[in-house]
């Protein structure tokens, strides 16, 4: 069985498109992933050798040392020499395995002198990317699943990258050392990209770090690896590795776009403007739990229709959106902009028959945050 595995493993190499019969780790795209790949191959060979040796002896015995063949039972029951030998040999094999692993661990931990540092924040259920230092500094966006609900519910044919596609991928230049700082907003998530040899938990309240340098351009996909609630299977990671010139161009585009998109948060907005914007924010952030009709999921996620919060005083509503509610699934959403929070609160108070009738302006959120 292990033999089949080892032989078949090589067929996994050199296949770029997702292969339904991929038997091995994905083709490595960074130095660490390559070391891991080779180490795994070496270990499989060692395991295969031990397997053949041990079960060769055992199955020889099973075939030959049978009562039905008239084989008489021997009566030996120990041999100190043999026992010492088969204790020492495994120790030596293990030392042989540990040596390359130790070198790789030390290399994996070296997150010093990066070209670009990006903070990755896990949210239920999307990723936030903030470019902290290096080229692209200041760029910040959220990245969430772009597979339509209809495909998941089997109402539409599934696309090629079903569940592994996002609205805005992380973009990094090829050949540059990228340091990833990780944290989370609500529960523990894990950011993983197998082809780059990276997987690291994102823990609320703490910062962890890891790094990669992509060897080749391309799109590399991964998924959240730590159970983080009901949409855990639906928060993929997509990293787009591009040539440095392309990266510079992407950075320029992002900067102009964000300048254009920046709204004057001090101005007064109308109810319709806020509701229209709020519906989008709701669809991106709230709909997974509270549902498109605002009814939530009975017993699990609170309804917003006719709820005390959504029909009561504005301040309580703003508070629960910004600070969350401890001990429940309601996470804090203070990472959203003043505009987004104002819009979504206004929307929730005036949708699905809720008729608070009041408008929340971005300036109020700004005030609330102080």
């Amino acid at each position, binding site marked *: *069985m292990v033999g089949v*595995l080892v032989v078949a493993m090589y067929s996994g190499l050199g296949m770029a498109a*997702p292969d*339904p*019969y*991929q038997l091995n780790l994905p083709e490595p795209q960074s130095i660490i992933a390559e070391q*891991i790949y080779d180490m*795994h191959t070496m270990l499989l060979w060692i*395991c295969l050798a031990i*397997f053949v040796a*041990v079960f060769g*002896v*055992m199955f020889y*015995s*099973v075939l030959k*040392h049978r*009562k039905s063949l008239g*084989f*008489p*039972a*021997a009566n*030996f*029951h*120990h041999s100190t020499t043999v*026992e010492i030998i088969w*204790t020492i040999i*495994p120790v030596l094999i293990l030392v042989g*395995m*540990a040596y390359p*692993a130790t070198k*790789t*661990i030390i290399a*994996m931990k070296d997150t010093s002198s990066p070209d670009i540092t990006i903070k990755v924040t896990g949210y239920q259920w999307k990723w936030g990317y903030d470019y902290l230092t290096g080229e692209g500094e200041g760029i910040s966006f959220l990245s969430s699943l772009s597979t339509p609900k209809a*495909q998941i*519910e*089997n109402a539409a044919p*599934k696309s*090629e*990258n079903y*569940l*592994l596609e996002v609205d805005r991928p992380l973009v990094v230049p090829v050949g540059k050392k990228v340091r990833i700082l990780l944290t989370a907003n609500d*529960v523990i998530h*894990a950011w993983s990209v*197998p082809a780059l040899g*990276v*997987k690291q938990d994102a*823990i609320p*309240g703490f910062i962890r770090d890891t790094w990669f340098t992509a060897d080749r351009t391309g799109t590399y996909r*991964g*998924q*959240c*690896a*730590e*159970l983080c*609630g*009901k949409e*855990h*299977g639906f928060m993929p990671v997509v990293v787009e590795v591009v040539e440095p010139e392309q990266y510079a161009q992407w950075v320029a585009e992002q900067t102009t776009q964000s300048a254009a998109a920046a709204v004057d948060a001090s101005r007064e907005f109308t109810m319709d403007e806020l509701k229209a914007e709020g519906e989008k924010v709701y669809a991106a952030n709230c709909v997974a739990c509270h549902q498109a009709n605002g009814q939530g999921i009975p*017993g*699990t996620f609170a309804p917003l229709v006719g709820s005390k919060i959504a029909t009561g005083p504005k301040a309580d509503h703003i508070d629960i959106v910004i600070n969350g509610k401890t001990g429940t699934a309601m996470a804090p959403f203070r990472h959203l902009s003043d505009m987004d929070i104002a819009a979504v609160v206004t929307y929730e108070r005036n949708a699905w028959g809720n008729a608070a009738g009041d408008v929340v302006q971005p300036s109020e959120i700004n005030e609330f945050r102080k």
Partner: protein
Amino acid sequence: MAAVDHDIAHAHDDHHPTGLMRWIGATNHKDIGTMYLWFSFIMFLTGGVMALTIRAELFQPGIQIVNPELFNQLTTMHGLVMVFGAIMPAFVGFANWQIPMMIGAPDMAFARMNNWSFWLLVPAALLLISSFFVPGGAPAGGWTIYPPLSVQMGMGMDMAIFALHIMGAASIMGSINIITTVLNMRAPGMTLMKMPLFVWTWLITAYLLVLAMPVLAGAITMLLTDRNFGTNFFNAAGGGDPVMFQHIFWFFGHPEVYIMILPAFGIVSEIIPTFARKPLFGYSSMVYATASIAILSCIVWAHHMFTAGMPAAGQLFFMYATMLIAVPTGVKVFNWTATMWRGSMTFETPMLFAIGFIFLFTIGGFSGVICAIVPIDIQVQDTYYVIAHFHYVLVSGALFALFGGTYYWLPKWTGHMYDETLGKWHFWLSMFFFNLAFFVQHFLGLAGMPRRVPDYALQFADFNMISSIGAFGFGLTQLLFLYVVLKCIRGGEKAPASPWEGAKTLEWTLPSPAPYHSFETPPVVK
């Protein structure tokens, strides 16, 4: 003289209540053992139905049968029910039945505590299962119940915590009983180093339980107060640390892994020499290997957390310590092989399961070493590779040993021989479908499919379908096991005191079925 006659007459009177009261007020180790075994089998079927629902959902990509919330509840409860409801109580059932008979004692040391430790399990299990029916449903944070996710759950989580508390208390009571029985009630002449290996492995397991269960109780109590009383043990915003829970949980959780496998080693070490008609090779090295595994199991917990973030020194320490476990485990496999070598083997169902155990457990051992290597673990952590790994050691490990042990001792328990042909069918079907279900999961994991997801990318579709077919085959095969056991209880060829030619331990000196009180006059062991 009259007094002596009276004693003899008295000795043959089992005088236990009949009907339901026999079971509710049971103080007899065999009655309690029987209840443990039936309880664990019912839990095994319950957890099995959950597993099959999971596999049915994963049969094809897309959401078809259960929504993601219920899916997470099912994976969580499958783990909790199988670990705490099926595997652990099954081994305690074996301990109850076998330890007094194997050491030449009349019964367990604390008969009433024995009753209590079983009957606590029933309300605990009801509490755990009924969490499906409360608002918010059963816990859905994985069997490892990591905060902060487990703090978000509804009251089902509190019910699970309380159930675990009760089950933990029951386990500790059972362990104290086993330790006391083994240390104080052995027949004259049976020194520790003459005990059957099953008794040795259970003695060491019982110590591990007494060490590990209170740690779990501490972790879940802190979780309970974080959830309900505003403490912040695991909440970073209040000065706590969510990763601390993982450390405490796995300080329990890793010894727990060996709690579930050491008695399995014991059962296999009884079966192999019997059917090889040859003494166990390296008895004392088996004992030392078991003890080394138990000690090492307490210093490797953070290998479950290599991606949680820890200093390089921490990763190196836990990697080296974990790899070391391969040495005593290897010694055991070599000893079993050497026991078979130049034996005069026959292959009745218990032997088939024992060899199946060694074969598949070793594959689980190989994937265990691969998982121990930190850089590789970074790739396979929280993927189906890990699922495959621990099902190879827990299903084809612990469960196969339980099946083997059941067939081995059924003649002693029931007084009848089981149906050998059906037993062999049970083995070969289990072997085939188990590998069909779980071997392909290695590939899924290496290719990057995360665990605990209700839906997956299209490239994983074919292997998931194969795995689901295997799982359904495996699940249905277990109904055959139930049939064989029921048939054996109801009748069959009369079993002699020792149906197995090579069996040497004390229980085979008793008639079959074993008398209600095992050894009223202790045998003398030379």
